[in-house]
């Protein structure tokens, strides 16, 4: 049962609170953690809120986007430089939830949620992780699959701005809006003379965490960017995924349709 919520006003205070409260969980937007608290199924006795630690805002400089981990998804929708992400953000929960849910928090929600992490994987993003004395840079896929050590905080995520028109996104859910992922596909594809020069694909809904579709990337890289080639490469996704059954779809169904949605995301048909 919850005994304390610390509400630090700076990153240093947040680290101090984490060392004072050794079993504390980090609370960002609360959209995934507070339901657990409300249901009484929590296994922690304290929370450290990151709402007022000053980790908000988006900065674009020299083609690199840096986003404070406590920035809400709704705040990203307002960023002109991130207009290419609007369709992806629109596919995550509802505007009300996006007014609360944060970029950092989205890395740690359980699948089949956390589509923004799939976008960040596609964008080749890294996370800045602070332990109070030093900071390290970690790939997003490592953070979402391995989590953090107790006492660590993701302070920022950053990624290079993709070429105009190179970011692709498709999501299959049970409803058009506000649905969990059956399969989420985010990708950055750059081509020259009809051939794929750079491809980076993140998948949501099809494994324990958002994952990189490394086999699909390998199969597509250097090849022609047409339906036959993309369809053949997309089939390789079965090597990258490990889907689960849940209330939204079976593991079998997810594995069956993942290549279809990869194709749809990449070539729009």
């Amino acid at each position, binding site marked *: 049962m*919850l*005994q*304390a*919520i610390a*509400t630090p006003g700076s990153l240093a205070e947040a680290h101090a609170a984490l060392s004072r409260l050794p079993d504390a969980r980090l*609370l960002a*937007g*609360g*959209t995934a953690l*507070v*339901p657990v*608290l*409300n*249901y009484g199924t929590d296994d922690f006795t*304290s*929370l450290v*809120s990151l*709402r*007022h630690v000053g980790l908000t805002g988006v900065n674009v400089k020299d083609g690199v986007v840096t986003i404070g981990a406590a920035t809400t998804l*709704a705040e990203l929708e307002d960023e002109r430089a991130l207009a290419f992400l609007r369709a992806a953000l*629109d596919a995550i*929960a*509802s*505007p*009300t*939830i996006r*007014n*609360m849910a944060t970029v950092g928090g989205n890395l740690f929600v359980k699948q089949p949620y956390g589509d923004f992490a799939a976008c960040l994987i596609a964008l080749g993003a890294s996370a800045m992780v602070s332990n109070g004395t030093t900071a390290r840079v970690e790939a997003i896929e490592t953070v979402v699959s391995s989590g953090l050590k107790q006492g660590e905080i993701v302070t920022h995520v950053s990624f290079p701005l993709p070429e105009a028109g190179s970011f692709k996104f498709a999501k299959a859910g049970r409803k058009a*809006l*506000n649905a969990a992922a059956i399969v989420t596909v985010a990708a950055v594809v750059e081509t020259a003379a009809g051939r794929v020069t750079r491809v980076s694909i993140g998948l949501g809904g099809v494994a324990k965490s958002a994952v990189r579709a490394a086999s699909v990337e390998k199969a597509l890289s250097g090849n022609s960017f047409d339906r036959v080639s993309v369809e053949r490469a997309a089939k390789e996704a079965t090597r990258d995924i490990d889907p689960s059954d849940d209330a939204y779809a079976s593991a079998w169904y997810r594995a069956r349709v993942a290549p279809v949605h990869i194709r749809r995301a990449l070539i729009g048909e």
Partner: protein
Amino acid sequence: MKHSVVSLTINGTERQMLVAPGTTLVEVLRENQGLAGTRRGCDQGACGTCTVLVDGKAMMSCLLPVETIEGARVETIEGLTPMQGLHPIQEAFLEGFATQCGFCTSGMIMATAGLLARNPNPSRDDAVRAISGNICRCTGYEAIIDAVLDAAKRMQAAQRSEAA
């Protein structure tokens, strides 16, 4: 367990309250402040019936431990309602038959207020998105979407007559 004092501006008036750790905004509004117009539904952010405005943005009050929003400006359905008569959004819902059992209505109206504060002239698509976090099990949504668009027109008309 250490209780703490939290200060919030609720419907324009600063209020202080003593809360246990993890007390959510919906609990404070209903149990401590007597503002029972905000409904408590699923307690997990899925139904939207507890939607209020926090610093002008529509949020689900069941997901907000009040200690984490110290100093915030909260507006509920009671604060939206004028001393006399109804707010244009309420009029639009009433006259458009956009409520049946009424349990979702205050959340729908506050989600609409959040939309119209940002976007005074929403498209039908904008209206659908704005209430996509709010569940209604009676109406089938069409009347609510119509009411959101009607509310936008009423608020624009009210602003024009104020300006004139």
